[in-house]
Each structure stands twice: as structure tokens, then as C-alpha cells.
């Protein structure tokens, strides 16, 4: 039971992270019909920006973890928002009328460039960095089950971000404009929507949500490295696909489903837990063969 409880908490944590990455893929696909392959590496840049900000705050004498956490979050979000908007403005929009595969390739190469830049130019960038533990480390005990405060805070934060995104998309004028652009770009422009601005804002939004995932990941494992975006990006993309690309709720479901598969692979299968990713990806491939358009097919009002 105790071990099971830990797996559930771990699964929820990972599911939240994957969902946060997956919604980015879905947002970008929604407004521009493109797959932005550099998404995972933007997440990694967010985690490194946050790490740098925390170290910087500490060096400047802000010793309180909350001050460092605030610096981490502000810089990670702002940095990735700017990076995401810049990628949209100077890479993706100019390629908009090129074949979709070209955009996929261009963003794949950009991701590699980002990864290599951090590895080569960040001080000692090829080695993992110890991400500081900025959250309270207290814990609660029920029998043999321990619930750590930091894990709980991370899961709750992630869920709040997802709920906030849902409200933004469905209840605000910006969200209405994003949905309009996703359904019909030209008519959206005819309504007086500044199309380019909405695209840039959407990319900024999706990228900073990925930074949240990157920082969460760092805080949870107390470690980040230049390659962390590769697997997280791939998992987020898979989650978006199995949920039905373009569907926000499908992406969230896909994220939690992938985490659940990893947990099942680690606990309930007759092979070593190191194979959990192989197991999860195998099931995803089977799911894709079974439901090629995703578990939640694109339907009424739910394109983004």
C-alpha cells in the first residue's frame, strides 16, 4: 500500500508535467497546423533559465528559498515566452506556406541547435546541474504512506495551470480569438483579429507552460541537463497525438495516460522497471493503430 501510494503521487506528478508539455503541441497545432519539434528543447531552456535565475538570486544575497523560487519562475516564464514568440515570428510564420514537413524539419534542427548551444556555451553545460530544492521539504505521514509537501505543491500548481489555461481559452476574449484563429484564420482576420499577434501570443503561452513543466521537473528530481527536453518533448507529442491532436482536453488526458502507462510498466509488469518507457511507447503505438485520430476525436467546439 505505501509503495502503491508513492507510485500514485509520482504518476500524478509526471502526468501533470506531460500534460503541460502536450497542451503546447495542441495549441500550436490549433492556431497554425504545425508541429513544433523544438518544444521539448524550449522546455529545457526554460529549466536552465530558471536554474540560472535561482543561482543568480542566491549570488545576489537573496537567501530565502521563496525569493529564489520567485526569480526562477519569473525568468523561466518570461524567457521562454520571448523564445517561443521569436521562434514563431522568425522561423514558423515565414515558413507558413512551405510544406508541413519543412516546418517539422526546421523546428527539429532548431531544437538540436538549442540543445547543443546549452551543452557547449552554458558553463559546464555538458554535465547535469543540481537544481536547488526551493520548496518546503516537510512531509505528512499516514501509516507507512508519506506525502511530501514539495510533490503536493508541484501537482497542485500544475493542475492550477491547466485549469487556468482552460479558463483562458474558454472564458476570455483572448481565448475566443485563439479559438477563432484555430478554426478559420481568414475569417478571424475579417473579424478584426490581429492574426500575427494572436499567433505570437499563443506560442509565448504554450512555451511558458512548457517552462512550468521544466521547472517542475527540476524541482522534483533536483536535477536538470541539456538533454532533458528530448524525452519530455517526445512524450508530450505522443500525449497530444493519442489525445487527438488539436484537442486541449485530449492532450491533458494523454499526458496522464502516458504517466499511468509508465507506472504500470514499472510496477505491474513481469519485467524490470527500466523497461517502463519501452512498455509505455509500445502501448502508445498500439493505441495509435487502434484510434488513428486520437482517443478524443476532434469534435464540437474542442479544436483548442
Amino acid at each position: 500500500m505505501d509503495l502503491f501510494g508513492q507510485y500514485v503521487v509520482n504518476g500524478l506528478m509526471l502526468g501533470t508535467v506531460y500534460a503541460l508539455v502536450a497542451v503546447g503541441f495542441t495549441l500550436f497545432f490549433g492556431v497554425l497546423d504545425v508541429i513544433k519539434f523544438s518544444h521539448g528543447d524550449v522546455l529545457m531552456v526554460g529549466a536552465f533559465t530558471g536554474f540560472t535565475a535561482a543561482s543568480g538570486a542566491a549570488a545576489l544575497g537573496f537567501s530565502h528559498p521563496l525569493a529564489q523560487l520567485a526569480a526562477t519562475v519569473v525568468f523561466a516564464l518570461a524567457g521562454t515566452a520571448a523564445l517561443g514568440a521569436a521562434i514563431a515570428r522568425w522561423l514558423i510564420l515565414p515558413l507558413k506556406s512551405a510544406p508541413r514537413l519543412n516546418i517539422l524539419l526546421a523546428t527539429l534542427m532548431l531544437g538540436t541547435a538549442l540543445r547543443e548551444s546549452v551543452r557547449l556555451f552554458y558553463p559546464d553545460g555538458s554535465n547535469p546541474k543540481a537544481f536547488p530544492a526551493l520548496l518546503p521539504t516537510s512531509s505528512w505521514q499516514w501509516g507507512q504512506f508519506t506525502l511530501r509537501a514539495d510533490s503536493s505543491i508541484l501537482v497542485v500548481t500544475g493542475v492550477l495551470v491547466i485549469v487556468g489555461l482552460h479558463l483562458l481559452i474558454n472564458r476570455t476574449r483572448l481565448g475566443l480569438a485563439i479559438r477563432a484563429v484555430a478554426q478559420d484564420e481568414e475569417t478571424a482576420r475579417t473579424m478584426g483579429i490581429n492574426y500575427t499577434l494572436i499567433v505570437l501570443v499563443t506560442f509565448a503561452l504554450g512555451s511558458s507552460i512548457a517552462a512550468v513543466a521544466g521547472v517542475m521537473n527540476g524541482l522534483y528530481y533536483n536535477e536538470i541537463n541539456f538533454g532533458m527536453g528530448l524525452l519530455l518533448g517526445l512524450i508530450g507529442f505522443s500525449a497530444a497525438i493519442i489525445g487527438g491532436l488539436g484537442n486541449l482536453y485530449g492532450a491533458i488526458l494523454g499526458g496522464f495516460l502516458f504517466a499511468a502507462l509508465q507506472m504500470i510498466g514499472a510496477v505491474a509488469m513481469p519485467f524490470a522497471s527500466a523497461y517502463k518507457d519501452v512498455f509505455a511507447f509500445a502501448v502508445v503505438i498500439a493505441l495509435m493503430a487502434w484510434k488513428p485520430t486520437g482517443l478524443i476525436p476532434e469534435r464540437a467546439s474542442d479544436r483548442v
Partner: protein
Amino acid sequence: MDAAIEISGLHAAYDKADVLIDVSLTVAPGTITCLLGSNGAGKTTLIRAILGLTPPRAGSVKVFGAEVTGEATHRVIARGVACIPEGRRMFPKLTVAENLRLGAYQEPSEAEIKRRLAEVYDTFPRLAERRNQLAGTMSGGEQAMVSIGRGLMGKPRLLIVDEPSLGLSPLYVKENFRIIEGIRARGITVFLVEQNVHQTLAIADAGYVLSGGRVVAGGTAAELKSNAEFHAAYFG
């Protein structure tokens, strides 16, 4: 008073084919000015050029005296322009109310948007009943209402309408023309693209005929009705 639309020497093309050749025309404020022409004449392309959706190759477009050639679409709209596009172009997966709200996208005041919504629901009671229905599931006639209502939500000074009667039953067509007359009565200039010659000329103040991408006739509605060139261009 500045013309609502003043186009001079306009050329437009898609990848290869020239679609508009040296088009010049004027839409006087407060009028219904129509643009007649058969399929493929370039009428929709002309509207796209005005709105900046298909930037023209040469020539100039002025809206209420301001040069808008090459301007982004949302800036043209901000000058008091609204468009009811060809084929109505609902956002099919948004509700009727959301579609209408998008018509007033540039209006910052929520109170004003609510006031305009009430006005549209007043004109089209059917839309009020169905405000939470997805627009894509509305009937063709109902979608026409949404599209007109959405155009009015922007409280435009100039409304550009592209073939509003396309695909509607004669009863709806008649109703549509009545509504367009009512829009002019509210002081809104209407630039109306139509193929329905007789009913259009019956309500229009002035008009032009487009054929093969060129303006081949123009004048008051009365002049057009008796213009031999117009008959030649239009009825072959």
C-alpha cells in the same frame, strides 16, 4: 465628404493569373452601391483586396479618405469596416453567441457588446433562441442571419456584403434585401456584391459591372438598368 471606398488603378492576381485589371470605382457614403458580375469575374477578389486579404499588385484603395493599400486586415476593419463574407463563413464549432461576439472583437466595452447583442437578437429573434447552439449545426438560412448579425455587431460605417442570397430560398432572399435596405436606413454605407441583378438594382443607388476582371459599366442604378453595354456584359 470622403468616399466610403475609392479604388483606383487596382491590379490583383493570384500566383499566375491576373484577376483584376485596372479597376477603379467609388462608393459614395450613405448609399447601397452594388458590384455585379458573373461567376469568376473577380468580385470576391476585389473585396479581398480592399480588406488586405489579397494584397493588390498595383493601384490604391482608400477607405473614408485613408489610404489602406497593403494595410493588415485588422487595421482596415478598425476604420469602421465590416464584411459579411461569401459563403457566410461561420466559425462552425463556436456557438451563435460566440460568433456574434467575434463581430464586435474590436469593441472593448462589454456593456456596448451586450447592447449590440440585444439589438441583433431583436432583429433576429431566432438567433436569441439558439444562442448556445453551435453555428455549424444551424440551417443555411439561420447561418445567413448569424453572418449578417455578426457583420452588424462591429457597428460599421461601411458594410461589405458578398453574395448574401447565395443558396437561399426566394423567401429568404427577399428578406435579405429588405434587411440590407434597413441597414442603409441606419446610415451604414453598403457595398453589395450580387448576381441577382433585378432585385439588387431595385434597392441599390449606384453600381458597377465587373467582367473578366475589368469594370465594364458603372453609374446610378437607373442608368445601369438602361445601359446597353451593361446588358451586353451581363447577359452575353
